[in-house]
């Protein structure tokens, strides 16, 4: 504890922005610590699906794979998985960070990812052992002490016992670690929290089985098992997307910037995978998509029914379909329609820990709850010297925007350290 590990910069958050910033700083010759709260690197972007139909739709989800691979081979970056910031002190221009790392119960050197521990864990459904679809991570299993029975009352050691004797990767006795890091610069890249679809209770998320979020659809498409109605595994033909769930309302008076793009790309992908499908989207205003937005919208309009209306209450039909009513611009009156699957295009909300983290770092949040940038022309700087921002911690952005900002942040950090 007396000798803090010294780094040029510490990056908080191992998602696409944090990884991109860390890699670029390493390229600029800085020594970097990358701190990730969860056991796995890659963040949300790495869990999204490729949206290519016959051609690439430029969503950027594949870019996370490239960068993760580079991350694990980069000697200039020290990784701190399953680690949180608990304290931040130090003099102006020098941060002293106290980190707490959860017990690394599963030894990465021994684990063969056989998955037995997760299969047999009695508290698996409570999240005592979690796994990841981001295959670049190793191990891809982690014990979460907060939900593990052993850490609760010592009542269970199933994972330790079930782990093959030749591997012996699980050791529940491993302690949590406290570390001190010292760095002249800190980059906040802690990402976002998807908007809670239950804030629009009339859409029935959680109540109507065939109402899902965009993320859930991405997961279905990513694992390659095909798109089925979650309620009854029936085939899907009529699909509706509903836009602006948790964006552009009283609580969140901003546009999340990514939902129109992912909705239309996912809609086109569904149409491509299921040629019989009829895809509709309900929207307020369609935002630009990609660098060739007019061309993209021309194509999307041919494949997807676009309706300017936000539906009222959703209902579950006896046959499992979801029915909704909306004011049709075309007809000039309210109309009803039924869909096999309703996908809520949830927006980008501020990270759940932002308040706590901002207090630790002694910096401000915007009224919407994101980290406050120094000014609109320098969104990767804060009012505090040495404290930088990257990615959606600062506000809504797409993958391309996160990467671009992260690279800029890396340059800013390098300039700052040189001029210091």
């Amino acid at each position: 504890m007396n000798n803090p590990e010294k780094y040029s910069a510490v990056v908080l958050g191992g998602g696409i922005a944090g990884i991109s910033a860390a890699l670029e700083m390493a390229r600029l010759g800085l020594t970097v610590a990358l701190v990730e709260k969860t056991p796995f690197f890659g963040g949300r972007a790495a869990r999204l699906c490729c949206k290519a139909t016959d051609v690439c739709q430029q969503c950027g989800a594949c870019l996370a794979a490239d960068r993760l691979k580079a991350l694990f081979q980069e000697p200039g970056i020290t990784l701190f998985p399953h680690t949180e910031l608990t304290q931040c002190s130090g003099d102006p221009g020098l941060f002293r960070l106290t980190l707490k790392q959860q017990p690394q119960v599963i030894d990465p050197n021994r684990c063969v990812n056989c998955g037995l521990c997760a299969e047999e864990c009695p508290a698996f459904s409570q999240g005592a052992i979690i796994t990841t679809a981001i295959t670049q991570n190793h191990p891809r299993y982690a014990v979460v002490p907060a939900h593990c029975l052993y850490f609760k009352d010592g009542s269970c050691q199933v994972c330790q016992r079930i782990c093959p004797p030749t591997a012996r990767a699980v050791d529940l006795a491993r302690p949590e670690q406290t570390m001190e890091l010292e760095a002249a610069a800190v980059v906040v890249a802690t990402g976002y929290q998807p908007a809670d679809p239950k804030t629009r209770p009339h859409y029935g998320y959680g109540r109507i089985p065939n109402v899902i979020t965009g993320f859930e659809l991405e997961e279905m498409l990513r694992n390659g098992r095909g798109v089925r109605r979650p309620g009854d595994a029936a085939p899907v033909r009529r699909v509706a997307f509903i836009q602006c769930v948790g964006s552009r309302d009283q609580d969140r008076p901003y546009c999340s910037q990514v939902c129109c793009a992912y909705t239309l790309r996912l809609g086109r992908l569904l149409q491509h995978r299921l040629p019989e499908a009829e895809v509709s989207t309900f929207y307020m205003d369609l935002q630009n998509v990609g660098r060739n937005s007019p061309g993209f919208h021309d194509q999307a309009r041919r494949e997807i029914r676009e309706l300017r209306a936000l539906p009222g209450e959703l209902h579950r039909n006896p046959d499992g379909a979801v029915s909704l009513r909306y004011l049709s611009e075309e007809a000039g009156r309210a109309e009803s329609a039924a869909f096999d699957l309703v996908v809520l295009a949830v927006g980008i909300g501020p990270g759940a820990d932002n308040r706590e983290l901002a207090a630790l770092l002694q910096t401000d949040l915007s009224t919407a709850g994101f980290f406050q940038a120094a000014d609109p022309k320098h969104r990767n700087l804060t009012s505090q010297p040495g404290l930088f921002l990257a990615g959606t911690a600062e506000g809504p952005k797409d993958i391309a925007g996160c990467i671009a900002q992260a690279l800029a942040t890396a340059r800013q950090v390098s300039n700052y350290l040189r001029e210091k």
Partner: protein
Amino acid sequence: MRTIDRELEIILAHSTELTASGLDYVKLGLWAAGLPGSRILALDPKLPPAELEARLRAFLHHAEPNPVLLAALDPYHRARTIIRLLTEKFDINPELLAVVDLQEALGYQDPRACSLKAQHLMRLAASIVTRALPISAQEVPVSTQVLVWGESGAALKSALDLARLDYPVLLAFPGAALKPLTPGGPPAQPPDEELMALVRQVETHPAIRLSPAAAILDLQGSAGNFGVRLQSGPLVLEEKVGALILAPELVLEPVAPPVAHPRIISLTRLEEILSLPEEAAALWDPDSPQVQVALLAGRGGDGHPLALRRVLSAAGQLLSHENCQPYLFLQDAKVAAPGLETALEEAQAAGLIIFKVNPPPALSLDQDRPHLTFFDPVMHEDLALACDLAVLAEDYRSAPENAALAELLRLYPGPLGFFQSDNVRNLPVITNRRGIYVAGPGRAVMDLDQAFGEADAAVTEVQGLLGQGAATAPKGRAAIDRGRCVLCLTCHRVCPHGAVTWDNRAIINELACQGCGVCASQCPNEAIQIRNFTDDQVVTALSTIDPRLTPRIIAFMCKNSGWEAYHAALHLEHAPLPLGFTPMRMPCAGKIDIDYLLQAFALGADGVLVLSCHPDNCKSQLGNEHALWRVERARGLLSEAGVDPQRLLFKTLAPNSPGDFLAAVTQLTENLETLQAACAVASGAVT
């Protein structure tokens, strides 16, 4: 079956846990020790680094380093330290280090299958690495001068930051003086303060030369050593530059009113009027109880949030007059930028009336006043509005010179007249040519914050390329056989990276070359070879296929997509890959020759899989297209030879789509099974 040309050092990074997954590493080690010319070290990767280093030192004691084959489970995680020691402490050239992930060998029910698979993977890797040649790095002298093209905020910031890093900068721009545009601000008024400050700093920095009224006439050479001919006012300059950053300013597309009338004006004109008190006063006609102003945005289809910002700021000024009622007509409110949703709501709360109409309102004159008719989808009826002033908002567009300049610079054009092809692999500032970067309004309409950020990224790229005047390039990666080159210049035409020039033969610039191999596969006289992907090396590797492993499937995979998806798939829960699956890593699908496909069948493959990136996702732009048409040609040739073309499958996929990889393997396996079944029926009919 195979002869090893050189000695091979095999490192089996094992621990007992391999056995847990069904592979007997002791047996595997004994088998590997029996490979001709090989020596083997079993090394537990969990040992402390110093111990690992000592053991490696004892093992690798030769003066001449031999190729090394490292086999491990999840090598890039578990054997990370060993890999690092080998490349850093023992100077093993990356080309002479084969890393085999034993993951693929696990998961078969039959332990014999596990070991056969592991042996197959190791034999294949051994065959490749023992014939590999090192690729060393060389220092190439480069010019440190950088040409920055444009007068945008991104151009100014790039120029200034480069100058501060001691790179001499030539800042060339088409205008007479530096007048950057404030995105989302009134174009006729002085730019934003920070932009003004940048202009002053750029104008006075000793390392920056300004070249106003400029045009790029010609560009020769390649990364690090471009020769540029530049019109600068009346002068023509010949300059040597190491890199270019393209950041030309956006333009506002002039509006064309359907009828010319003083009451139908552009937004720029309205901004001008509002900024001049006496002109503005004339607007507030004391006789009219209320001045009605119609603002028409996004008439050219999709507008941009920055255009909406301009409109809203003008609307705000109009709303501050109590007897003015502004209306805003648009198709979609493009609010996807920070602060715009709030600005829109505030304007509405202050009295702005918004109609979202499509098509845009018809504008005519009625009693010397602008007259709008439109269909209001909310009231579901045709409406008309007589107003005192109709204001047409301009849209932002790319600089008009871009298209011609892109052609001159041999850049693939981007969408809507911007530079940089629409391909996420280029993000944010890369183009198809090393040494030419784009930033800010050179590649899209964007706000200053993003444009400044891209300037930062472009500066990092330039610094990474040019260093302090010496760039690092691989030596001998692409070689041209002087005896075979007939100067047909196919390579020059197909090179996606503009890396091939010529004097009395073709020359590949090693700094600009990105090693995709498109030229090598396309050369009609086989005069170009990519080191470690030469025709001999590839075909010899194919011959390691073990006849005991069926079905024999050879998969040629682009390293940027198929190869990554294959590795991701190995880590998913799935049925194991066919035993005879033989993975071949290619630098780009564009390097997959027709000959490789035919040779694969000649050497006993039952099926061949070609996996490339999706269209518009290829790092070498057209590598996937080259691969597709070669597969089609090969299919034709196979048919002629009596081989069913269904045995050759082409798929495009993304690196993050392991599901697509598995689906492709399944599809080919099913094709083969169907063919086999048909074959069995046919032969049954004969007997």
